[in-house]
């Protein structure tokens, strides 16, 4: 019998990370009036998920699943399709960057770059929707630049937090426990 790409255990883990992304988006609030600050939480979660299930495509599965959940829960200001695609793109971009950089988010610069580009994936989807829909040019002339900077900074912080979490999990023996489970 052909072996499945993700085991049932891994799929359960990925589903849990997807739910965590959505819960973090709903529950965790920061008093920051800056665009993209939620990336601090969800990039960290995606990076941890990509290490806990160390296979190409793991981040994409988290992105797609959390996108479906968020879309059905009515999250986001721009409709379910926008929400679904932006969450999905976070996962897909994270996977692409992880693949390009060798796939180990336990290396600091890898997790930070995954955080930045993964988060930028979400920005690109939201921005593209605006362009396609014919949204007027920004009232604030430098609004877009500020937005891009926000996404980069918060994506990088999210990547750093993900890396810190992985370090803590390694120290606590979580990966040894996981290896036994497999």
């Amino acid at each position: 019998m052909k072996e499945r790409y993700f085991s049932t255990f891994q799929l359960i883990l990925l589903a849990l990370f997807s739910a965590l992304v959505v819960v973090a988006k709903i529950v965790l609030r920061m008093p920051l009036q800056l665009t993209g600050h939620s990336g601090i939480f969800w990039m960290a979660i995606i990076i941890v998920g990509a290490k806990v299930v160390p296979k190409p495509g793991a981040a994409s599965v988290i992105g797609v699943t959390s996108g479906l959940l968020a879309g059905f829960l009515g999250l986001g200001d721009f409709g379910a399709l926008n929400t679904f695609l932006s969450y999905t793109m976070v996962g897909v971009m994270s996977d692409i960057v992880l693949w390009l950089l060798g796939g180990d988010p336990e290396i600091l610069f890898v997790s930070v770059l995954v955080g930045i580009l993964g988060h930028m994936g979400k920005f690109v989807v939201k921005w593209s929707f605006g362009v396609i829909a014919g949204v007027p040019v920004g009232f604030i002339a430098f609004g877009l630049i500020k937005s891009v900077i926000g996404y980069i900074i918060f994506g990088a912080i999210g990547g750093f937090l993900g890396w810190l979490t992985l370090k803590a999990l390694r120290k606590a023996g979580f990966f040894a426990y996981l290896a036994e489970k497999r």
Partner: protein
Amino acid sequence: MNQTKRIIIVVIILFVIIAVVLAVDFLQRQNAASQLPADMPPGSIPIYVNGKFTASFVSEDLNQLGLVSFVDDEEGKTQEGYLLRDVILLYIDGGSLDSDTSVKVSSSSREKVQTLTWEEIDQFNNMVLFDISGRGTLKLVSKIPGFDIRDAWVQDVDKIEITTP
């Protein structure tokens, strides 16, 4: 391929994304500037009174307005921006507005319209304000029952029309 090359490739991808976004935004602004009259800079919001163009709400005037905020009940997010009342009074004489004056705020790209009376807009507790979105466009939000949810709010506002009785 060594790790340095991989990092360079990723950084190049990041810069390409940023460059494309900024280039498209620049072209959109150039395009808008060439199509609009001189007193309507790109991104500004035209204000019409009884069908006649009266003024353009421009970002340079924001420093004359006070920032206000509230936390919405739907998602518990902070909506922060500039009261529609203050924006209108910046360009229109308050004496010409009474409680029955209607103010229509619309977004052509979203095909959304919200019409409010001056009485509703003038009440501070209603928090009828423009929140600035991540893209730098204006979003009309409020705490008025029925107009306190995202579906009803007007994103990417591009016109304000005032009709006096």
